[in-house]
């Protein structure tokens, strides 16, 4: 059994943000206090209380907008999740990988992990920490819905057929089929790491135009001073 997966066809996403709000609704997550920062995108980034975020990037050529790219960012539920590999070194019950669906699940025991390390380990920069409790959070594939035969909240909310959910093999096939079709209009179209993840994006342009960490191996994560120092003290890890 290969578990479950998403196929997210970005050629059809027009950023209605139904998925972003549906995620908050199902998980009963509070709203963040935001302000308009000169963009339609809000919140500005993922957070401990925002698992799903529609990122928006204007693609500009010669000063003129060529495209407006929308990217509903979320955990990819990697087949071999690096976050779990790192987390298991400190607490094997902190990050779980559910057998039937393949869901990568963060538990409250993530408080026992080094949050920065977990975030660093993610090729897509997804996990976020609660600074007060040190607990980490991210998309849980609406596991409680899925085991009851329901679609994840984000998929259910999507009006355009951008978001799909089902058996991973089916999603992979759907992604390949759609890629072949879309290439006729968007020659740069590409699937994001289709063999490594359970959440397969179809990008109509180079993934880096959507987001620096849209696909793995785009480049190393950059560190601010605080993060750099945290790395320095890495040897003092918990027993």
């Amino acid at each position, binding site marked *: 059994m290969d578990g479950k997966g998403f196929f997210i066809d970005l050629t059809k996403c027009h*950023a209605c943000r139904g998925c972003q*709000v549906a995620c908050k609704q199902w998980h009963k997550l509070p709203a*963040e206090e*935001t*302000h*308009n920062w000169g963009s339609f995108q809000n*919140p500005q980034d993922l957070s401990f209380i925002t698992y799903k975020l529609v990122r928006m990037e204007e693609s500009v050529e010669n000063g003129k*907008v060529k495209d407006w790219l929308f990217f509903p960012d979320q955990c990819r539920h990697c087949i071999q999740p690096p976050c779990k590999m790192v987390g298991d070194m400190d607490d094997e019950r902190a990050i779980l990988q559910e057998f039937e669906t393949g869901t990568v699940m963060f538990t409250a025991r993530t408080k026992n992990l080094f949050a920065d390390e977990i975030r660093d380990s993610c090729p897509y920069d997804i996990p976020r920490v609660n600074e007060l409790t040190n607990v980490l959070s991210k998309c849980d594939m609406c596991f409680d819905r899925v085991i009851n035969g329901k679609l994840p909240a984000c998929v259910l909310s999507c009006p*355009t057929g951008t978001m799909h959910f089902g058996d991973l093999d089916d999603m992979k096939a759907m992604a390949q089929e759609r890629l072949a079709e879309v290439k006729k209009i968007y020659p740069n179209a590409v699937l994001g790491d289709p063999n490594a993840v359970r959440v397969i994006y179809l990008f109509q342009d180079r993934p880096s135009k959507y987001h620096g960490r849209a696909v793995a191996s785009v480049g190393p994560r950059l560190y601010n001073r605080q993060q750099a120092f945290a790395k320095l003290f890495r040897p003092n890890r918990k027993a």
Partner: protein
Amino acid sequence: MTNHYNDLMNSDCILMMGANPAENHPVSFKWVMKAKEKGGKILSVDPRYTRSSSKADLYVPMRSGTDIAILGGMIKYILDNDLYFKDYVVNYTNASFLVNPDFGFKDGLFTGYDPQTESYKKDTWTFQMDAQGIPRKDPTLQDPNCVFQLMKKHFERYNLDRASETSGSPKDKLEEFYKMYAATGAPDKSGTIMYAMGWTQHTTGVQIIRAMAMIQLLLGNVGVAGGGVNALRGTSNVQGSTDQALLFHIIPAYMPTPRANLATLDAYNATTPKSNDPKSANWWQNRPKYIASLLKAMYPDQDPATSYNFMPKLDVGQNCSWLVLFDHMHQGKFKGYFVWGQNPAGSSANSTKTREALSKLDWMVSVNVFDNETASFWKGPGMNPAQVKTEVFALPPAVFCEKEGSVSNSGRWIQWRYQGPKPPGQCVRDGDIMLELFTRIRDLYKKDGGAFPDPILNLNQKDIAKEGKSFPDRFDPQKVAKLLSGYDVNTGKQVANFTQLKDDGSTACGNWLHSGAWTEDGNNMARRDKTQTEMQANIGLFPSWSFAWPVNRRVLYNRASVDLNGQPYAPHKAVIKWDGSKWVGDVPDGGWPPSERHPFIMRAEGYGQFFGPGLADGPFPEHYEAMECPYEEHPFSGQLHNPTALKFAGEAAMRAVCDPRYPFVGTTYRVTEHWQTGIMTRWLPWLLETMPQNFAEIDPELAQLRGIKNGDKVILENMRGAIECVAVVTPRMQPLISMGQKLHQVGTTWHYGWLHPKDGGDSANLLTPSVGDPNTGIPETKTFMVNIRKA
């Protein structure tokens, strides 16, 4: 919509102009994307590059308010290049009709203009009649007085240079747009238009839509799958409220409101549209049956001739449209005001005037789910509560999912909703609020008498209220639905549809277009049956899903989708087809065999109208600048503005025309994340999180010019008001070259208000002018002049 949402997927070319469906009608976009998947072209023409534009094959920027220049250019392009669908134009439109030789057009004015009244006498806007009283025609379309030649002459001025110069749209983009859209003139192709308030909210709004309707007729796009003229209505049930005539000029199902000069039912019926052409169905000739049945529905115990006298009557020429009502309120002509599910302090053009008008009332009742800028206007900015005499009552209503009833979507599907949760606390369903109000007023009339108690005392109760129940559980939506659909008063049986309605008082029907929604078979609006024939499945037509007015017809004017032998022009997406003995597919526009009746059955003559003599501002569309504009002249005529626009005394000095203090073209819109004035969304934290504050979108050059950085607080201002918001500096906005000048546009939303959230900003309608379209009175909130500066 002549068509419906699913049908968008059948289109070869979807034009989004005057609408931004990805953001404002996001669920409709599912069908747009399906059309694209099937190879259809998607076009977006908009002052801004929007979320809709991001999915378009072609985006054309434009100056707000120049739609007729652009569409007129397309009409000329189609005519010059012989791209129109000739059989359709000759057989199904009034292109061949001969017009009164005295009709003319000169320098922006049609014949009959009276500068004193700023209106037209339409006695020359007529057709030449033959001895039988049928319009004379020239099917060769060569007669210089035929509609086709007059149209050609009228649009001769709309060349590509002029269209581009006026609109600021680059010539190459315009030409590409014309070419892509005009390709749907092939008999088996269809193009459709998705428009909304971006077209209606101009002083030329109705004529913009007319221009597009003419394009659709030229290309043979009306009546076909993937075609039509499709208005995306602004709220979920606004189609239903229009059908029930929540407007001043019509009574339910689009019959004209009685006027004072029509003192009797006979006089009213004498105005029924007539045709001497035996091949014209002239459906409105049935109007006497519908008015009699409506009167019987309202007054079951009176004969219609008597109860007609109970109907309120407008004076001849009286205009009670929105802006006029608020102008009268501002003059202190009203004592009281029910504001029901609305927030005019934010939604109404020239909101300062609106807010002042509210202070002239003795009382106001606000029925709304949340507190809002209207209900609390007395403590708003610039108001001194001690000086406001208006007494405000706030009533808490149930929300949509707490009520049973019907909701009509833009595609005319009347869909039944069951009640979900019960209304919390003291919240009451609107129907019960109204019924209780009525009952108490009636009791007062009974007790104390009054000037004219009959209309109140005779009003139908049995078909509205539940027996033996009391407030707040008396209103019966099922009974009302049955009354709207209609029944035989002698047998009590529901009618099958409006063909069974009578003009003698023997049938009662509250809305002839809803007739058939609830028959002896039950509630057809509640049907959720996906059964369809192969032919229906081919075009996504579900005849047993809910009920569409009229008579469950899904595509209006579908008799124009077939040739004179009843065979579809586009066999691969046929809407109807004559199989030799009957029609198959959709419900046809009347069951007559092919070519026995002209297809446009709601027009007296039976033809689609290029020459439209019914409008206030001319039988052909003409470009005029908005009432506030950056120029003192334009290249089409010496008439700067629509000479018949609705305006108000004393406000001309408050309008900026070529005023260096307000050099930028402003426009307003909505975003996906908020709803109208934001009453229902600003209080929801998850939605507020996504769009927390009002903003102004500007191009990077304008930002540089004004020293504004992305995310800066800015002030938008003009002579009517000022609002503070956040600058969104984006290449999605671009300066345009229009009339030889570089022109910047500023876009902002009208979702926010001073009440909540505290730093959200106030309504953009503080900036918009109180001027309106002469036909509808809809305010011109899409084009006005502003200045922008750093806060």
